[in-house]
């Protein structure tokens, strides 16, 4: 009886540890930022949301998420009038779970410059992203090829190139 009780307690403890260790998918915003961020679906839901429609091989998809400019603003990255001088030699390195990396300059993300917005997406057609898309991805609707619309996004690192 005592042994059974001990086993039950051990089982419950292991189960609790397993739940505690379950990794919540997130995107880290790091590097040359004033305020590093850890973005989850829950935190992104509280940001201003936007949608983008894309068509790939005839199939239309409505993606929803948050503009990168909004995320960078919250991380304290220079925007608009502040995006001058040294800041103009900065870029965002977007990295996927598999190590895939692409770059966007701060200027090309800023509406006061090129204005070609890039959306950090967490839903497609109203449903959370899954599988090969990862839980988060980028959608760069202004790009002709899709190579910078990074799937399985895990990290956005702001890098200043100015020496």
């Amino acid at each position: 009886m005592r042994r059974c009780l001990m086993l039950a307690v051990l089982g419950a403890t292991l189960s609790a540890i397993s739940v505690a260790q379950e990794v919540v998918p997130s995107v880290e915003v790091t590097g040359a930022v004033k305020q590093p961020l850890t973005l989850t679906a829950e935190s992104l839901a509280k940001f201003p949301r936007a949608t983008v429609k894309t068509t790939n091989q005839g199939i239309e998809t409505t993606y929803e998420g948050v503009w990168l400019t909004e995320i960078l603003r919250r991380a304290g990255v220079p925007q608009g009038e502040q995006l001058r001088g040294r800041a103009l030699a900065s870029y965002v390195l977007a990295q996927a779970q598999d190590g895939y990396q692409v770059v966007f300059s701060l200027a090309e993300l800023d509406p006061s410059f090129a204005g070609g917005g890039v959306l950090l997406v967490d839903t497609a057609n109203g449903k959370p992203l899954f599988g090969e898309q990862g839980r988060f991805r980028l959608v760069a609707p202004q790009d002709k090829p899709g190579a910078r619309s990074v799937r399985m996004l895990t990290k956005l690192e702001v890098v200043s190139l100015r020496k």
Partner: protein
Amino acid sequence: MRTNLHLVLFDCALSILLVSSLMGADFDWRLTPGFPKPVVPADNPMSDAKVELGRYLFYDTRMSVNGKASCGTCHRQELAFTDGRARSIGTTGEQHPRRSMSLINVAYAPYLTWANGTLTSLEGQALVPMMGTKPVELGLLGHEKEFLEVVAEDPTYRRLFPEAFHGQRNPYTLANVTRAIAAFERTIISMRSPYDRYRWYGEMNALSDSAKRGEIIFFSGERGRCFRCHGGWNFGPVRFAGTVPSGRDELISGIFFNTGATVYVEPNRGLFEHTGREADIGKFRVPSLRNIAVISPYMHDGSIPNLDAVIDHYIAGGKLAHPNKSEIIRPLTLTEQDKQDLIAFLNSLTDREALTDPRWSNPWPAVRAQR
């Protein structure tokens, strides 16, 4: 007066409906919602009657010079409309240099056959096996008249041809034969594999955990990179209704690749055979990977026996060196588990319903049983 007006309006509506129907605009493709419609030539609109006629012609062995083979001989439904051979054999026993290609979703193929950058219509393609002499496939060249006479006298065709080509004084023509076969082939559409159910229908349990891991490897730009050639919902290049045509060279560069799979000597020199450009030696069309598990052996010449060996080929970065080998083909770092996951994913692309759907089966046994 009001009644007359109603009748006139009703007649007009009926006429519009009939014209629309005749033009094929309201043809029911039975597509998954959201998927694009195939391209249909303006001079060969779709109709149920034409598709049905095409099915009979597709499986009619009288189309071959010796009555032994039909389109369905090299395109067997249970094998995703391939024949399971490394290289197909024509009706007179002559071996083709290449294997037969799957006809599933062929309506979306931007180019047809393995290595022809000019062949884009199924109507034109149908003439290749019918009339070709190098090699002979059906061997119909020189025997067209006899075949059309047989067709015109067959009771089944005497019903189907006039229905399909309504109003034509003599519908029993070779052009109409190719139109009907093309219309039938355009309906062979598969969008119900386990992977489709997982990806598009929200059935999260339609795939095993291994296949789900395989999907991630397949679409990873750093790991499998398979999607670089076999991307999109059809796992290969597509064209569809409303497609804005790209420049021909641009289109071809994204569809024909040299993968270093074999030595590219006569009669398998790829796109070069039509362009004469050295840079096109060894370039073959990217096939769709739908139903790939039932389409062995692999590559244009069936030189790779199974999926395991295909993945080994790509892990090696293409087994053979060739100056035209695509830069996409580079060595991959994949574990044995990764390989098994990729194979599980590829297996999930098999649409069992498409392999047995009676709409695309051979109708002749039932006809003969009734005669």
